[in-house]
């Protein structure tokens, strides 16, 4: 009993610490990569290749004055960054980073909790994350923030439907919600990857997930060229950083879930499972950065039209075709 609690605590600490480090270094990774795409160098002064830049940034932001705008709603204004930051971190709990291993005669699963509603849990947390943006937009009492908050709520609702429906086909084949089980079904051979069985679902899922995490080309809620900084216009210092890091946390979570659902998660030959898992996650993070560095932003009406008239029907067609193939 005590030992299993101890193992759980260790797992939580390791995953949490690893995730935090990943968030910090994703900011560095993105700035360097976007710089290379744009023929610049990016941050390379603090530490070797700029590797200490995230730590320097964190210190800079921590020492800024955490003021509250005078006409804002103080409670909600403070609460919003936390709501934006926490859900994507919680979602990692159901993503397996390796197969079950045996330590001193005990079977230890390399994930924090194998919920049998796994993927639904991730979606539910994603839908809570919207509140961070909406509350920030409303409580700031500023027109740019409010517009950002409005846009985010509309965008999230539209793309959440696509996100949920895009994996239904996969769930029909897998017959389970548990991400650990889905990964296990894909181990063995590359051809077992659900990407090959559900390619359309993968693209729809990844596009919707990108929209959910407010990344370019879907970063309408912050759209710096029209809304100053959107929902976090009024936020200073570490509170702003929480939104910023929340976005990165969301990216990492999405990359982990995508790798697990469609690309076999930790499974792979020769290398240890955790290495395969990280390789796949970093590959998706790179795609995120690559898309950001190369694509222009959608216009707002295009965004909504794309969500409802392209993504939504395609997900339904995907479900229909999957069903047909399974029955025939």
């Amino acid at each position: 009993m005590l030992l299993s609690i101890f193992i759980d605590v260790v797992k939580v600490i390791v995953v949490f610490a690893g995730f935090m480090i990943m968030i910090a270094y994703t900011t560095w990774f993105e700035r360097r990569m976007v710089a290379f795409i744009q023929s610049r160098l990016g941050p390379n002064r603090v530490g070797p290749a700029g590797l200490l830049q995230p730590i320097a940034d964190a210190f800079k932001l921590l020492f800024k004055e955490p003021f509250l705008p005078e006409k804002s709603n103080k409670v909600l204004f403070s609460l919003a960054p936390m709501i934006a930051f926490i859900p994507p971190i919680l979602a990692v709990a159901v993503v397996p980073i390796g197969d079950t291993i045996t330590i001193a005669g005990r079977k230890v699963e390399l994930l924090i909790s194998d919920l049998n509603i796994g993927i639904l849990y991730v979606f539910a947390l994603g839908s809570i994350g919207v509140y961070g943006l909406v509350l920030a937009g409303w409580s700031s009492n500023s027109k740019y923030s409010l517009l950002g908050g409005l846009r985010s709520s509309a965008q999230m609702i539209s793309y959440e439907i696509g996100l949920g429906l895009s994996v239904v086909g996969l769930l029909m084949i897998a017959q389970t919600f548990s991400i650990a089980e889905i990964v296990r079904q894909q181990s063995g051979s590359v051809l077992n990857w659900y990407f090959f069985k559900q390619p359309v679902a993968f693209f729809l899922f990844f596009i919707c997930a990108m929209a959910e995490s407010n990344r370019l080309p879907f970063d309408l809620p912050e759209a710096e060229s029209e809304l100053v900084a959107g929902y976090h216009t009024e936020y200073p210092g570490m509170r702003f950083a929480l939104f910023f890091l929340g976005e990165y946390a969301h990216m990492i979570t999405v990359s982990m879930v995508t790798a697990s659902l469609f690309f076999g998660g930790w499974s792979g030959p020769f290398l240890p499972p955790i290495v395969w898992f990280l390789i796949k996650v970093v590959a998706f993070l790179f795609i995120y950065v690559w898309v950001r560095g190369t694509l222009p932003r959608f216009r707002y009406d295009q965004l909504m039209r794309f969500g409802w008239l392209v993504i939504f029907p395609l997900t339904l067609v995907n479900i229909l075709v999957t069903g047909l193939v399974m029955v025939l």
Partner: protein
Amino acid sequence: MSMLIFYILAIVAVVSALMVVTLRNVFHSALFLVLTLFSVAGIYVLLEAEFLAAVQVLIYVGAITILMIFAIMLTYQITSKSIRQVNEQVIPAVIIVLVFFVLSLVTLIKTSWPVSNKSLPGNNTFEIGRQLLSTYVIPFEVVSIVLLIALIGAIIISRQDGPSRPGQEDR
């Protein structure tokens, strides 16, 4: 332990539900509604109905309440107004609610609630799906049709242009 958690969740749910109907700022009411729905999801988890809990959060917290908040934010300066939560029919309302309360209390006490000895199915999500598409397929489909009708109704009401509405040409 689980009893303690239940009471905490129940108190949060009831208190925030009261806030929803008494606060004068419509935005705050919507946020307390989120808290209520969230506590109910917690109670579902306590009852080992994880699927219901996840769907509760996904649909009610993530979609329906967000839609309400969206509508509130779109409405010009509605959040700076202090709304009235009662009107002149408060006395009849109280009487009816009291009658209903007594009625449900009596029912609650008098009914002998059946307790099943069967253990929970290991994967109750699977079981819910199976039941919905076999035993309860007709209610399930009827509900879908009701939702579809509501959807079409909403589209017809919100539709302003197009040749199908003859009264609109002179705009």
